[in-house]
């Protein structure tokens, strides 16, 4: 799966994009967020409080309960502030 980060999430994790292998343990967006948080460091900071984050799966807004499949594009970012 391709995982993308934007705004301060990107800055905290220190990269804009990475590949994470889909496994049976990664059923939902929330599972992936927990895996990333467990890495600690900048990831721990970025994913420590999921209430501050939003997510998208395959470029559509998604909740933590959205299910994942191999090849998905998952993005994590703060609430949007455009306009």
């Amino acid at each position, binding site marked *: 799966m391709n995982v993308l980060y934007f705004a301060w999430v990107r800055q905290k994790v220190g990269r804009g994009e990475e590949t994470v292998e889909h496994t049976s343990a990664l059923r939902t967006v929330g599972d992936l967020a927990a895996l990333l948080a467990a890495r600690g460091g900048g990831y721990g900071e970025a994913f420590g409080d999921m209430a501050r984050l939003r997510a*998208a799966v395959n*470029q559509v807004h998604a909740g933590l309960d959205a299910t994942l499949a191999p090849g998905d594009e998952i*993005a994590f970012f*703060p609430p949007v*502030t455009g*306009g």
Partner: protein
Amino acid sequence: MSANVHIQAEDFDVGDEIEALTAELPQTGAVATFVGLVRGGDDLTALTLEHYPGMTEREIARIAEEARRRWALTGITIIHRVGRLTVGERIVLVAVASAHRANAFEACEFLMDYLKTRAPFWKQEERGGTVQWVEHRAADVAAAERWRKP
């Protein structure tokens, strides 16, 4: 009718955009436009806008499609700039064409409210020497919520 959606670093000319929007639409009797600018004050010198390429265009297209379903419109143009913009520069244009003004006014406001809460853009503010991400505002979320149908 499909919406014209552009994400770009370059500035735009509001007059030219209105001309282009209405050129082939003789049934248009009204055009409502909203232009968002970089607001000065509190030592703000510039904004830098980041976006999610691909999802931004898709999300705006979805928002425009929703507007087209809810109001009788003849055309929509949405332009959103990205990159670094200084005080007074244009950020966003929403132009909505319809036969009569009520639909154009309402759809324009709807589109802006949804752009602010759904389209994946993020702003950073420069004040003096410091740079900070803008926090989202509860008022923007409330403004978008009021368009939800009971």
